[in-house]
Every structure is written in structure tokens, then in C-alpha cells.
């Protein structure tokens, strides 16, 4: 089959926790985004989600919103974000990269051009949080023919849609921990674990949990329930803190230390 399986392969071969960090392209600037990706690979990331900043990110909480605003102020765009991937590859990034973007920028570029650009950049998949399967038919089939994984999300409210979503899932299945937008949560409600177990039973491909993962305790509590975690807001909050002040020691080292404390046992 296609190279689509690079994402699946990485997800399947990862020991717990399959670790998928999210970083916003262009925050605090494009050069640092490339460095962050490489640092994350070194810190043990199996797949990188490269987030494209958007003016109206409906699924995101305040941390990612602020991060997007900073990146947009730097002139970041969907095109420029895709162009960062070859730079990451040149510097030695080998793990799969998923381009995370809202649908409107994709629509302006054109679905076909978008997917071809993603493919040419040597990224491995796409994730569009505001494109439920009812609206994604054409994009999903084009992605498939180009060998790109189209990552699906499943939410606690998905209920009777879970099987339908699971049957379309590629690479890994993104399981939204609890209702609400992205961002740090203190803990997950008990029913979250029941839901994640149900999702896990619905599919053979790895299940990664996102939305709110910000502590070592979260990662530990999901062991045996899910295959991995997606961490976005917690990392971008750290980026905001570290790059927002003139820290003495290396900014990258500080973020690496935080990431390691999350996932290493």
C-alpha cells in the first residue's frame, strides 16, 4: 500500500506513550519552529503535528489562540507552514509530520494544491478539525491517492458515530478527551476513560488522546487505556513563557526538560 503507512507505522511501533506533540508554525518565529521540531524528535516524539495558525480557531482554547495570533503577526500562513517541513527534513527530522489546519485556508489554496504541496514537502498527513466526515469526502479520497494520512477525530459526544469514524481512521485515531476546546485541564472526568476504552475497542489502529494533556499524571492514567497522547497547549504555554522572557539558559533546553518530565518514566 501507500506511504500512508509511515504515520501508521510510527504509531504502531511506538512503546507507550505514543507521543505526538503539537507546535504552532511561526510561534515565536519560523526558525524556532524548525528547532522545536528537532528538539521534540530528540525528546522522544514519534509524530509531529505542525499547527497552521488561523484567525478564528473554533476548536482551540486561549493558549493556542494566543499562539496563533503571535504567529500570524509574524506573517505565517498555510503555504509558509508547509514550507517549513523541508527545512525540518534538511536538519534531520525523520519522524512523520502531520499538517494541522482549519479548513478555510485549505479552501483558499484549493484542496488539490494543498494536498500536493503537503506531499511535495515530505509531510505525511493532514488533520482538519472543522471537517467532519460528511464534508471531507473529496479531500479524504485525494489524500488517500497521494499516500497522505487523513487523521480523524472522535469526541465524547460522537456516540453512534464512533464506528463510522473509526472505519475511516488512518494513521492513528485522535480521541478528544472531553467536551470543550483545547487547553490545559486539571483532570479528566471518570467517563472519559469509559469513552476512550470504547473507542479503543472500535478500531485496530492506535488511539491517541488529546485536549488537556498537560501533566505526567494524565499520561500515566491513560496507560493501558490508550496508545498515546497528543500534547499541544501545554507545550505552547511553555513556549510562551520561555520565549516571552529573557531566560539565561537555552530556551529549547527548558522546553525539552518539560516535555521529558511529561513522558519519560
Amino acid at each position, binding site marked *: 500500500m501507500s506511504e500512508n503507512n509511515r504515520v501508521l507505522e510510527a504509531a504502531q511501533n511506538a512503546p507507550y506513550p505514543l507521543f505526538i506533540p503539537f507546535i504552532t508554525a511561526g510561534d515565536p518565529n519560523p526558525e524556532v519552529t524548525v528547532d522545536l521540531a528537532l528538539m521534540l524528535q530528540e525528546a522522544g516524539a514519534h509524530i509531529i503535528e505542525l499547527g497552521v495558525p488561523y484567525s478564528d480557531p473554533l476548536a482551540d482554547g486561549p493558549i493556542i489562540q494566543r499562539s496563533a495570533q503571535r504567529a500570524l503577526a509574524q506573517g505565517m500562513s498555510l503555504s509558509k507552514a508547509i514550507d517549513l517541513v523541508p527545512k525540518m527534513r534538511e536538519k534531520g527530522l525523520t519522524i512523520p509530520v502531520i499538517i494541522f489546519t482549519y479548513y478555510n485556508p485549505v479552501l483558499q489554496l484549493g484542496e488539490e494544491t494543498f494536498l500536493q504541496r503537503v506531499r511535495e514537502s515530505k509531510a505525511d498527513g493532514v488533520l482538519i478539525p472543522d471537517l*467532519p466526515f460528511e464534508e471531507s469526502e473529496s479531500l479524504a479520497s485525494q489524500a488517500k491517492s497521494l499516500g497522505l494520512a487523513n487523521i480523524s477525530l472522535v469526541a465524547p459526544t460522537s456516540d453512534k458515530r464512533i464506528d463510522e469514524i473509526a472505519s475511516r481512521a488512518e494513521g492513528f485515531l485522535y480521541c478528544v478527551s472531553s467536551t470543550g476546546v483545547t487547553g490545559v485541564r486539571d483532570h479528566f472526568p471518570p467517563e472519559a476513560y469509559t469513552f476512550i476504552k470504547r473507542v479503543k475497542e472500535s478500531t485496530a489502529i492506535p488511539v491517541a488522546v488529546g485536549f488537556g494533556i498537560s501533566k505526567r499524571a494524565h499520561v500515566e492514567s491513560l496507560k493501558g487505556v490508550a496508545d498515546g497522547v497528543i500534547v499541544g497547549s501545554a507545550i505552547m504555554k511553555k513556549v510562551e513563557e520561555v520565549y516571552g522572557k529573557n531566560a539565561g539558559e537555552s530556551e529549547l533546553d527548558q522546553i525539552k526538560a518539560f516535555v521529558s518530565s511529561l513522558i519519560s518514566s
Partner: protein
Amino acid sequence: MSKAYPDARGRFGEFGGKFVPETLMVALEELEEAFHEAMQDENFLNTYHHMLREYAGRPTPFTYAKQITEELGGAHIYLKREDLVHTGAHKLNNAIGQALLAKRMGKTKIVAETGAGQHGVATATICAKLGLECLVFMGEEDMRRQRLNVFRMELLGAQVVPATTGSKTLKDATNEAIRYWVANVEDTFYLIGSVVGPHPYPRIVRDFQCVIGEETKTQAKETFGRLPDVAVACVGGGSNAIGMFYPMLEDDVKMYGAEAAGKGISTSKHAATITKGTKGVIHGSLTYLIQDENGQIIEPYSISAGLDYPGIGPEHAHLANTGRVTYLPISDEEAIEALTLLTKREGILPALESAHALALAFQQAKSLEKDNVIVVSLSGRGDKDVHSIKDYLEKRL
């Protein structure tokens, strides 16, 4: 025919749809089902119409603008008086319908967005009446500009929450309301204020606003024995316009939507979505919107807060594409001129939004035969705008 939309996928031609996070998909399906059942239920419809009559003050009058008609020397101009609906605008028609639907669905909390505050006030009003908890998101900037409406909502028992992201106006308040809904979807009903958002909202709001056009048709026949030749309404999201237009889509009536040209469509300060926008997705719906070449949404501008929205209802996008309705830009200046004229000649102070429709109607009237009739949707009253009008006129001096 034109009236057949939306289709099963929630599309009006190519526009509309459901571009939302997965978390909301089931809620939208449930809403669609509940709405469909409610509209088949005689009790529900009776309650809705009873409240329109006894609480909102419908039917609203159909007023002949005699002085202006004579002064312009063209077509007869009639005004559909939505400014006389309780709380001062057509917004309550929809708020009543959706609040009753929320109650029927067993939801106890209502969340809404508001720009200038008209939809927020209408929602807070019906929530007070029906005993529902009410949360209204409003841009921090709009809260500053419309302090009295904030106070009014609070007096009605609503909690007003500032939207502090982006440009801190309607677009951002809508983002925040949707985000709140995503987090509280189990017990909360999102009561959207215009024919925008994901399917089935554009249809729900349209159906609850159609009373405007239906009454107009009846009143036109009673008053001059036939339908009008032309119908005009202002378009921000487009709820009063679709309420006026939809019942006449298959009739021989020409229709015009007035969108806000702000300081002019050759400047960046406008909200002329059809004239200047391109296809894109905003708040869950594929439509025309004002955006840059990278697909980032641009903040629009209009003197009228109710037209200051970067998108437009998907059904309007469709009606513009098929040519059934013509959408034309009206500037701040033209709106103010029309507002002043109506106030001085007819003793009616219209909302700044409605003044855009009046300006377009006055332009059309002049070029039409004297036996033609134009109906204008006078969507709201202008009391809320006196500060903005005063500022504008003083600056112009």
C-alpha cells in the same frame, strides 16, 4: 425551485453545510431532528404564534411612507414595521422560536452571541419570560460601545461575558459562544441570532423569521390588492432579509439586499460581503466572506454594528449566485441620509441597519413607475443608535 433548500446535506446550492468540530456533530443532528418534530407539532406552532401575537406584538403594521413617496416622485414606498416588535427589532421573532425549541428539548441553559446587543436583548428577554438561564457573549469593544444594552441584558437576568479575543467584536463573540457550546453541549442550547452558522441553524432562523414576509404578503393584498413589485431589506448575516424574501421567492417580486459599504467598497473599511467577498468557511458554514489571500478572516467595518459581520447567511450566497436577489452596497453616508429623511418626513427613527435598506429602496423608487410598489423591511428602531448618529453628524460638520 428556489424554495427547496436546504437539501439533506444542509446545503443551499453549494453553500452552507456543517464545518464544525466533531464534538458538535451529534448536537446538530439532535437539533435538526427536534426542530423537524416541533414544526410538525400543532401545539408547538400554536404556542409560537400565540407568543408572537400576545408577547411580541405581531402582526406589525404596514405603513405607507406618503411624504417620502411624494418627495421622490417614483414608486409607492411601504414600510414593514419590525421596529415595533417588542424589544425594538425583528430579532425577537427568532429568539422566541428557538427558546421554545430549547425548552421542548429539555435544555435549561441558553448561550447566545451579540454584536450591538439587539439579539442579546431579545434572547435575555425571552429567557426571562420562559425561566431559562441565559449567557450572552459580547465583544469587549462592543460592550464599551453599547453599555446601555449590556445593562439592559443584565437587568433581564442574563450574564454578559466579554469576548476578549481577536478584534473583540461580533465575529469573536460568535467564536466564544460556539466554544462555550462545545464545552457545555449536554445541557446548553446555542441560540444563534442570524441565518448563519452550521446547518440546521440557517434554516431554523429563516423559518422563525418568515413571519415577516408572510404578513407582508397578506398586508400588501389587503392594502393595494396585490404583491409588491420590489422588496428590500438590509443584510448583515441576513435574518430579516431572508424572513422578508423567502415567502416571495417564487412570486413575481424583485428583491434587493443592502449590504454595508461602510466608508466605501474601494476602501478596506466595509462589510460588503457579496460585493467584495470570496467563498470560504466561517462559523461552520460555506458562504461568501471577507478574507485575505491566505484564508484569514478580515474584520469588517460598518457604522451599523448589526451589519458589521465578515460573512453572510449561506442562503443569501446562493440567492446572489443564482441572481434571484440582487445585493448592492450602501455606504455609511447613504444610510445616514436615508435615516435623516425618514425621521424628518415620516417621524420614524430607523435603526442604522434598516437605514441601509431605506437608502437602497429610495434609490430604486426614483427609477420606477409611479404605479409600482416597494416594500422595505424596517428591521429595527434607531433609539439604540442615537449616540452613533450624533457622533457621525457632528464629525461631518
